[in-house]
């Protein structure tokens, strides 16, 4: 039996009933897309096509079209990879970790956040695949298959290979978790389509729902599957960014070779992920009129997570500096002084301003409950997190052990194009999701409507 708390804010406002939930959410799927949707979709597809052209030029001509040189061998590609993977982490945190902690406020945001995770991981994966140059053999060489020269296997000691396993497992398990959540909601749309007499839609959504019926026994099994998937996803999401950070931390490059990386990267990932979830949800709730489901209270709670993770990231930056000084290794000390005062000082201080100072504004209740302020700060946070990865990667590489090989990194239009490609892909996929799939988990929200919505007038 559920108990309504007198001190907590209602999670669903507007006195919604169970029926209203089906109606409000399914309507988006059933109706024609709005003009605003078409405009956004058009822009995304244009970005995707331009990006696809740049990707094609890379595959045709080789990685030389990027601005990499022999000193800076990793730059925008890996920066963007880490940035996108990090963004994905918020979705799993919301759906898995908050499920284990029984945080009910996750229920109206988890669907969109998980969708974001899946699309972000696809975008992330496109960078290592592109950087391998030969897309038709690269992915095969990273699998433990015997090659044609004999049984020479992949190197399981390499963090880059761990990444292959981590990212692909993370992607497929997140996909399954997300899809499991969608199954009962597809059945809602199917049954509504049957009642409306729309046979084609009923057929499609029945196939998507795997013929879901919603019997008590199935629900019991379903809940047990959801709980275990959450239990599996929780260490999985922590392992993914840990392994991504080990791509750097297990090397001997000053600036990368630090033991603080795994927790620091995971906190940064959640930080940027929540910022991206907020950016997307603020738009989604406005466009689809979901103000009663994604309330100011939800936004405030997410902003609080941004303050916490942003502060952890800030502490990590300072700790890195302290350890560089305290460790007394000249190369390490130089790497950090060069970061803050060298030719890339502007990137370092952009990172500091955006990531450490801007989220502290959320200590003010007025700011963290203000939609415009939240929207602006979340975008600033994501710019800052992009700079964080750029600073870690490029400033550690560009002045290596031999001053004669010191150099700078200048992105070409194909570096930028590859980044644009992922934006096009991400927004195209997200818009298709928002149109054809229910953006809010109806079954879960229905289960809390009675206990946590505002008092209904009887």
């Amino acid at each position: 039996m559920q108990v309504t708390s007198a001190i907590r804010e209602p999670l669903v406002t507007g006195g919604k009933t169970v029926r209203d939930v089906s109606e409000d959410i399914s309507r988006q799927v059933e109706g024609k897309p709005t003009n605003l949707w078409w405009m956004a979709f058009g822009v995304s597809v244009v970005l995707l096509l331009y990006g696809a052209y740049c990707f094609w030029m890379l595959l045709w001509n080789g990685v030389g079209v990027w601005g990499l040189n022999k000193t800076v061998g990793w730059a925008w590609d890996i920066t963007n990879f880490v940035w996108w993977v990090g963004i994905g982490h918020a979705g799993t945190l919301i759906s898995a970790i908050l499920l284990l902690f029984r945080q009910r406020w996750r229920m109206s945001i988890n669907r969109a956040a998980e969708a974001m995770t899946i699309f972000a991981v696809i975008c992330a994966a496109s960078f290592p695949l592109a950087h391998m140059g030969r897309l038709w053999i690269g992915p095969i060489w990273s699998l433990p298959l015997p090659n044609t020269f004999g049984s020479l296997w992949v190197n399981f000691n390499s963090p880059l290979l761990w990444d292959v396993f981590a990212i692909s497992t993370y992607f497929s398990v997140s996909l399954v978790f997300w899809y499991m959540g969608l199954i009962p909601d597809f059945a809602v749309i199917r049954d509504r389509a049957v009642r409306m007499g729309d046979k084609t839609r009923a057929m499609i959504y029945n196939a998507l729902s795997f013929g879901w019926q919603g019997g008590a026994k199935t629900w019991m099994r379903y809940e047990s599957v959801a709980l275990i998937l959450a239990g599996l996803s929780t260490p999985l999401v922590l392992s993914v960014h840990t392994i991504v950070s080990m791509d750097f931390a297990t090397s001997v490059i000053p600036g990368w070779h630090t033991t603080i990386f795994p927790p620091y990267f995971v906190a940064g990932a959640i930080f940027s992920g929540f910022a991206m979830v907020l950016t997307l949800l603020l738009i989604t709730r406005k466009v689809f009129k979901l103000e009663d489901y994604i309330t100011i209270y939800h936004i405030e709670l997410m902003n609080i997570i941004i303050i916490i993770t942003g502060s952890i990231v800030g502490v990590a930056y300072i700790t890195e500096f302290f350890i560089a000084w305290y460790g007394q290794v000249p190369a390490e000390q130089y790497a950090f002084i060069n970061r803050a005062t060298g030719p890339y000082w502007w990137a370092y201080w952009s990172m500091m301003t955006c990531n450490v100072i801007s989220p502290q504004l959320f200590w003010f209740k007025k700011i963290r409950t203000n939609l415009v302020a939240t929207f602006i700060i979340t975008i600033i946070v994501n710019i800052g997190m992009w700079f964080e990865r750029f600073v870690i990667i490029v400033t550690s590489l560009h002045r290596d052990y031999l001053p004669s090989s010191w150099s700078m990194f200048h992105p070409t239009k194909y570096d930028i194009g590859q980044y644009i490609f992922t934006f096009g892909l991400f927004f195209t996929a997200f818009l298709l999701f928002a149109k054809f799939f229910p953006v809010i988990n109806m079954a879960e929200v229905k289960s809390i409507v009675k206990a946590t919505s505002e008092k209904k007038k009887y």
Partner: protein
Amino acid sequence: MESNKNFVVGIFDDEDVLIHAVESVREKGLHIHEVYSPFPVHGLDEALGYKRSRLPIAAFMFGITGTILALFTQTWMLGYDWPMDIGGKNHASLPPFIPVTFEFTVLLSAFGMVITFLIVSNMKPYSWPRQFDLRSTDDKHVMAVDLATNKMSKDEIGRLLKENGASEVNEKNF
């Protein structure tokens, strides 16, 4: 699909009424075919007398299979099939094998469990479910009672469900 099955279908509006109804009609000796709900109702499985799902055991078995398979494969590939001397280090040492082992455990566990769930729940993309009432995915809880497995008559069952708070009682034949 079986033919000539007759069901009495009780519609409930509220989950708390439903759970009490399930408990009291079962005490009266009524055998419930199944209850269909738009969302998981906590306590309904106990009220219906269902045993706990054994899916966690399946998940564990799949997971442990993944662990063993990943550890064995990595050790065999790098330690036995093609040992490589890299700086005099061990050909096969445990710590670097942990990440891949962990990921593979999670992968097999998650996929194995979900596929088991789909099989035991008889869910397929091409099967159309037997629907007692289309509102059971919207806002109503639907209790289906199979006449063949009960001694009571149709009217008696209907009356019993009404007494226990059903807002409607219908008949459904397949």
